[in-house]
């Protein structure tokens, strides 16, 4: 892997094997390598159990890798964990809040842990409370708040401090659309200020909208990394097709199923599908469908990140299965 001068997070051949008594060892990371540059938002995508959270746990010094190296701001997470922690702040997957404290106390306590000058703590706490719509709950004990509000408190804390690297593990989970939007904007603003952000998410639209680059992780390996056009180009010949008919007939579905589909949804007289085929085959499908039933409207677009994601994971699964057989 080529290394950039402005690389802030560097992971090389990282392996993590969980060994549990009376269970087979689990290889959560299997030689994963990636780099994140200064001021960049890198999105980690992958199925549940792909290794994303394990990677974040290693980078935040919660666990140690079995082998390989991981560096944050040039500091090794195994040999220099304390200095790594001085450079990072993290929103972990679990809701992490002081349930017995008020919203304001959660923020001020967090500020103390991150050595914000005492006079400045309150100013910053006020600012993030406004930014995340927490102002009206400032004196409310967190245990009495809803799950979404608790998550907001947790995420808001991160924006009180100026650490160069931020790790966000499914940060917007449980938030309503308005606060999700505020969080995404805050993340983007932080990146513009030069903070490096590594986030995991299951919401592909969020990753597509927010991330400068995307890394797709599967079976503990990075199977694709790059900006959106590059990732999309890795899954060439995937198209999204929407077709509306005068009426829906069983023959339409039969016709469609003879093509290599990745995804198929039907709603009333409309079919939404992703197809992995050449342009010629794609129009052959439309032609075949129009012979079965007149088409009222159709739309063909290049693949979305979700299509690419499914295609790359499918390819990875096939490779893993082939590797297992050989």
């Amino acid at each position, binding site marked *: 892997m080529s290394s950039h001068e402005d690389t802030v997070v560097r992971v090389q051949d990282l392996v993590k094997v969980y060994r549990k008594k009376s269970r087979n060892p689990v290889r959560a990371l299997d030689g994963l390598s990636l780099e994140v540059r200064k001021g960049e938002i890198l999105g980690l995508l992958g199925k549940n159990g792909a290794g994303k959270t394990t990677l974040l*746990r290693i980078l*935040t*010094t*919660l*666990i*140690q890798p079995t082998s390989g190296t991981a560096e944050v701001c040039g500091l090794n997470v195994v040999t220099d964990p*304390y200095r790594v*922690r*001085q450079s*990072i*702040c*993290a929103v*972990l997957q*679990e*809701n*992490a*809040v*002081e*349930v*017995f*404290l008020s919203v304001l*106390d959660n923020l001020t*306590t967090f500020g*103390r*842990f*991150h*050595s914000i000058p005492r006079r400045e703590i309150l100013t910053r706490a006020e600012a993030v409370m406004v930014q995340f719509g927490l102002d009206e709950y400032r004196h409310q*004990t967190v245990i009495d708040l809803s799950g979404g509000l608790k998550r907001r408190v*947790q995420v808001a804390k991160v924006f009180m401090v100026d650490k160069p690297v931020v790790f966000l593990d499914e940060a917007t989970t449980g938030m309503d659309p308005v606060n999700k939007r505020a969080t995404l904007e805050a993340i983007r603003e932080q990146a513009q200020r030069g903070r490096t952000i590594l986030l995991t998410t299951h919401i592909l639209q969020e990753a597509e909208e927010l991330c400068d680059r995307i890394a797709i992780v599967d079976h503990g390996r990075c199977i694709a990394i790059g900006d959106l056009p590059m990732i999309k180009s890795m899954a060439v010949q995937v198209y999204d097709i929407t077709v509306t008919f005068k009426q829906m007939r069983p023959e339409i579905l039969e016709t469609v199923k003879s093509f290599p589909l990745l995804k198929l949804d039907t709603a009333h007289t409309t079919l939404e599908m992703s197809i992995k085929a050449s342009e010629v085959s794609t129009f052959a499908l439309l032609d075949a469908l129009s012979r079965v039933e007149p088409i009222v409207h159709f739309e063909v677009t290049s693949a979305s990140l979700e299509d690419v994601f499914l295609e790359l994971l499918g390819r990875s699964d096939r490779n893993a299965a082939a590797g297992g057989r050989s």
Partner: protein
Amino acid sequence: MRMILAVMYREFRIRTTSLTWMFYDIFMPLLYLLVFGIGFNSAFPDGVVVDGVRLSYNAFFLAGVLSMASFGIAINTAYGFFVDRENGIFYEFLTYPMTRSEFLVGKILFNCLLALVQAATTIVVGSALLGLPIRWDLLGLVAIGQVLGTAGWFFFLMTFAIRIRRNDMFNTFLNVVYFVLMFSSSMFYPTEALPRWLQTVSLGNPLSWHTDILRYATVGAGTVEGIIVKGVAFVCFLAIFFALAVQTIRNPLRA
């Protein structure tokens, strides 16, 4: 130091959210002494004999109450780890810019302060209400005994609270351990009165060491030589569990 103070501040903020908690923290040992102690004092009007010295039951029980208070603080803090883990904050803490030792020291310093406030309240009010024959010249030793005792029990229970991930399992473990430690110790009765086998068990019981040190420091019962040996033994116990606690918290997800 800033991180240690931040941990202490956090513990303080949480403790002061509940009046019941604060009342329990400060007055529990005193109430125990007043209610339980007075009852037993009436049941044993001739008092008890410790190392040839006759003491009223109240005077004898004072040290037991103080060591019980230390153990109680450690129990509460150990359960606090489960609450913190359930709320996810425990793991987030470990990503904060502090060493694992700073985290532990901050927690223990707060608990030690609490133990000192409890001890001072119990001794001063207990002496005024019950006329306990306090060795005021040895108060410094009481403070050292409470600090070391609280630290020892904290590291002991914390090690298991983090390694045993299930609250119910830890509860069972704690009940068994406390039962064995308490009833094979000099907390409630002089060990001289126990069967020989139980006396032997008591000799190796850190709760007996802690209680005997406090008994010497509060009412002067025991010998200097015996107290030194027990003090050294307790410091070794503390050092072993401090090392285990640090090792446990270095890799909390594996433990």
